[in-house]
């Protein structure tokens, strides 16, 4: 298209395309040199374990945002899922129906089904009444949180079998944290869906221009409902991992997680307008958040300061993406 932009200095195109990766590498190098104990295997794996909870959901959120929707209620869904798993396990074993060891499987299945149903409900309201998902899920954030508190009566529920701890805190081969496996699995599955399946193509089309997608014969309603279900199911999985990590379920879990999740997606370059975004970018975004947090911890930065840094980071990332997008569009327009 563009004799100007197409064949100019390749390094500038490369750096534009991989801006985020380059910045991340730079930060990592700085930390390797300056931060004591950063570049050790346990610490690196620790980073992955810390980001796993938000990370698992963030890939689902990537689909949702690319598809032109959002889910603000995932934090509450973590709590509900954790509370449900612990409560149902306790109830089944107490009633003598089955021992805790196997009851937890039923409980996990229930938590996943509930997540599925919440997503289905959100999707139904979204598509049937054409209400923005921002508003629906803002309301559901409260409903779901309230339900979790009601079920747990406001106290942590700890009726979980010992083996369950492995899901959230176990180590594969004595070193590799199990939560990181869930993170990688979530990444792999969503990556394949978004890049290699018909459904993935449909999500991009629907997010980019729902009317054009509809007139191309794409089932827009199905796509919107499915992405809203997917992010909820992943939130339920995240809730299971968290409850396994701390061996209890509480309605206070997951508060504010939606912000970490959405931050990772945005830092990864996904556009809030829908239609633009990459699953790989979200992976970078998640690692980015993890590395920054870890670095700050190593340097003894306080929690309050961490908030400020994280906030500025998001702003910076969005600025970067916007400027890049605008320059791309300008180039495309000039070319016409």
């Amino acid at each position, binding site marked *: 298209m563009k004799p100007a932009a197409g064949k100019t200095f390749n390094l500038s195109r490369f750096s534009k395309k991989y801006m985020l990766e380059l910045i991340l590498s730079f930060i990592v190098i700085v930390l390797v040199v300056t931060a004591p104990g950063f570049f050790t295997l346990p610490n690196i794996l620790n980073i992955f374990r810390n980001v796993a909870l938000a990370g698992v959901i963030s890939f689902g959120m990537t689909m949702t945002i690319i598809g032109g929707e959002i889910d603000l209620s995932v934090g509450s869904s973590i709590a509900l899922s954790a509370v449900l798993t612990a409560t149902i396990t306790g109830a089944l074993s107490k009633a003598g129906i089955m021992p805790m060891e196997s009851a937890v499987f039923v409980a996990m299945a229930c938590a996943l089904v509930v997540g599925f149903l919440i997503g289905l409900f959100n999707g139904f309201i979204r598509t049937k009444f054409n209400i923005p998902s921002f508003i629906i899920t803002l309301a559901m954030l409260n409903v779901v949180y309230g339900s979790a508190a009601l079920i747990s009566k406001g106290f942590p529920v700890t009726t979980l079998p010992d083996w369950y701890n492995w899901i959230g805190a176990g180590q594969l081969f004595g070193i590799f944290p199990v939560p990181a496996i869930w993170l990688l699995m979530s990444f792999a599955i969503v990556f394949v869906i978004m890049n290699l399946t*018909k459904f993935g193509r449909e999500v991009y089309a629907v997010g980019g221009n729902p009317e054009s997608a509809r007139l191309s014969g794409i089932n827009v309603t199905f796509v919107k409902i499915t992405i809203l279900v997917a992010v909820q199911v992943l939130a339920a999985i995240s809730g299971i991992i968290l409850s396994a990590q701390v061996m209890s379920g509480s309605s206070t879990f997951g508060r504010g997680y939606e912000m970490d999740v959405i931050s990772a997606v945005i830092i990864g370059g996904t556009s809030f307008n829908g239609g633009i975004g990459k699953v790989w970018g979200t992976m970078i975004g998640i690692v980015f958040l993890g590395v920054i947090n870890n670095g700050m911890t190593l340097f003894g930065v306080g929690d309050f300061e961490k908030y400020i840094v994280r906030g500025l980071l998001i702003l910076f990332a969005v600025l970067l993406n916007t400027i890049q997008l605008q320059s791309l569009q300008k180039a495309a327009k000039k070319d*016409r």
Partner: protein
Amino acid sequence: MSILNVRNITKVFPGTKALDKVTLSFESGKVNALIGKNGSGKSTLVKIINGAYLPDEGTLDIDGTPLKFENPSDAFDQGMATVYQEMSLIPGLSVAENILIGRYVTNGAFVDWKKTYAKAQALLDEMGIDLPLRELVVNLSVWQCQVVEIVKAMSCRPKVILLDEPTSALAQHETQILFKLIRELKKKDVIIIYITHRLQELWEIADTSTVLRDGVSTGKLEMAGAQPRDILKLMFGDVEVRNRPDDLKISDETVLEVKDFQRVPWFQDISFSLKKGEILGIAGMLGSGRTELLRAIFGADKADSGTVVLDGETIGNRSPRNMRRRGLAFTPEDRKSQGLVQILSIKDNLCHASLDQVSPGGFVDIKMEKNFADRQVASLQIKTTSIDLPMTSLSGGNQQKVVVGKWLNAEPKVIILDEPSRGIDVNAKQQIFQIIWDQSRRGISSVVVSSELEELLEVCHRIIIMRLGRFVGEVRPEDVTIEQLYSLCMGGEI
């Protein structure tokens, strides 16, 4: 009385001379219609009068006092007001707030709402209009919004008011209310320039009609004594209507049948059938219901009643998805907002209607996807260096080819094309026609709607005439001239 004089205005864009030494005059106290086909230069002239463009040569003056604008707000300050067809009102504000926006009566830092509303009411009274001043604009109907726009423009006491197709989105009875207001404007000392595509309106509302063709003024008519054919002659001159290639055969097999189709108030009692390989044109003025008809056939909008039979099978559930599966394709009028996903790549867009084919078992066959895109880029001659570039990198004509290519990939039996040549250059137009003919040779039928009637004469085997939501006649291109076809669309006889 005052007169706006346009003297020797020339405006050149890269590649085209939009206006060539145009000299015109418009008097106050009259409705001066400005007409011409798409590309005749009339929108360029409007933009020069309201300061959006600077002329390369020539001058504007009112009664000999020269006008000089650097930008639109300059022009506005010197009394040039424009009412666009796209609304500039703010939906969340009330009627009065919109009329007086930026000019509220203030009392220190606060708005004096009482006086502001009184001022707005006075403006309405002056023009003999009754509108609920406190109503939010979002709750108004389209014609009411147009009225608010006009009152807003008039409240600045302009010397010239440009009305850009104010009736294009209105129904018949609403048009009448608007006309009443425009006649009221004639009593003010303002020069009214009325731009329209609806030729049949001219006799009703215009006192004079100024015609542009290919950037040149071809004449000015007093409407009192004018006949439709006088206008058409000025608009078209001696158009050379080309013929379609003569090897295009129609088979006896019926592929599409539409029966008793109805969607009130857009169209009623529509029935027609289409043979394999046939190219059918639907001719009608703006607002005749042609776009709504096409959309309903494709299932983009729900019809009230009627049936669509495709290949002998009546289709019960008409959704775009189902119609596509049954072999129908639809390229919408507005390709930017309805036909394409602008931010996605050319490849993605070319495959959007054929995702089932390129992803057997739900997984995309990357190779096949690329082939699908490449074959359309090659056969439709889409000009691009890479299929991975976003749609925004393409020109209008090439974008239109992508919309068509997207549907050819779905291997349809019938293609419905709504204004396929809108906003694209002459060469691209010819290429689009060539594509339609090529499909006909392969036995694929087309239904074509176009505002450019000479295009229908060139492309189609048969043309149905649509007026006010009904089919009122059918002609063969070889039997009529363009002027006759226009006259039929406007409600006249051959």
